[in-house]
């Protein structure tokens, strides 16, 4: 039987996958994609709570999360492109402007 807890478990697993990728991947663009996976996990969480509790707050928060995700992807990818134009690097370990 699928209830709210199943959706929360799925959300937790997806969030952990995104967190793992965000911490351990080297590529800056995949890092931003992992942030999108984490936001998708939060979308499942809010929508399932809203569905099972018959409360519209979660749906409205999902709407705002999608808008914020679009803004975040645009700004993050712009920074990645600007960084690539300046340094010719997209790997997080090689970006060391502050090394003494």
């Amino acid at each position, binding site marked *: *039987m*699928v209830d709210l807890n*199943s*959706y*929360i478990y799925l*959300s*937790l*697993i997806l969030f952990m*996958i*995104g*967190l*793992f*990728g965000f*911490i*351990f*991947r*080297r*590529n800056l*663009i*995949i890092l931003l*994609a*992992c942030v*999108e*996976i984490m936001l*998708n996990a939060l*979308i*499942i*969480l809010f*929508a*399932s*709570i*809203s*569905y099972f*509790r*018959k*409360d*519209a707050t979660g*749906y*409205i928060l999902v*709407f*705002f999360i*999608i*808008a*914020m*995700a679009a*803004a975040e*992807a*645009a*700004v993050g*990818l*712009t*920074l990645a*492109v*600007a960084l*690539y*134009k*300046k340094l010719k690097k*997209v*790997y997080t*370990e090689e970006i060391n402007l502050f090394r003494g």
Partner: protein
Amino acid sequence: MGAQDLAFYYLGFAMILSGLFTVFSRNPVHALLSLLVLVVHQAFMLYLLGSEFLSAVQIIVYAGAVVVLFLFVVYLINLQKEARFRVFVRRFSLGLIFFILFAFLFIKYFVLIFSMSTSIRTLLPIDPTSSQALKMMARYLFTEYLFQFELIGVILLVVVLGTVFLLRKAKEERLG
């Protein structure tokens, strides 16, 4: 087991699998295409969760705009040479400490959500299965959450201006 349970298990399994492909794939284009698979499955899951409007928004914004933007950037930055190097960072132990720390924190808060009882009062009542659900949601969006809605508009405007400003500045520095 009903059709809805079966749909949930299929969608959840496919989402976890495509998420793992996104994290572990060596080629960025393959990773982003599996992210696209995840997003489309997520849209069907939102339909399963009673909101066809959010399902359509998910398809339009995520699959139509965000993932395509990621793919454009990957094509802009040519990574073919570096694709055969290693995928993960070298300092694995440092990352592991942070991963365990964050995982502990998030599991703690998710357990808090598990234990959230039904005693919390409903703020904005809605019936997701009725045909009036979208109307109710629009009414709440434009009354209770009107300020946040306008704020999202301002944020998107700032994002457009900031994107143009950042890339133009980088171009001038490269030329000069």
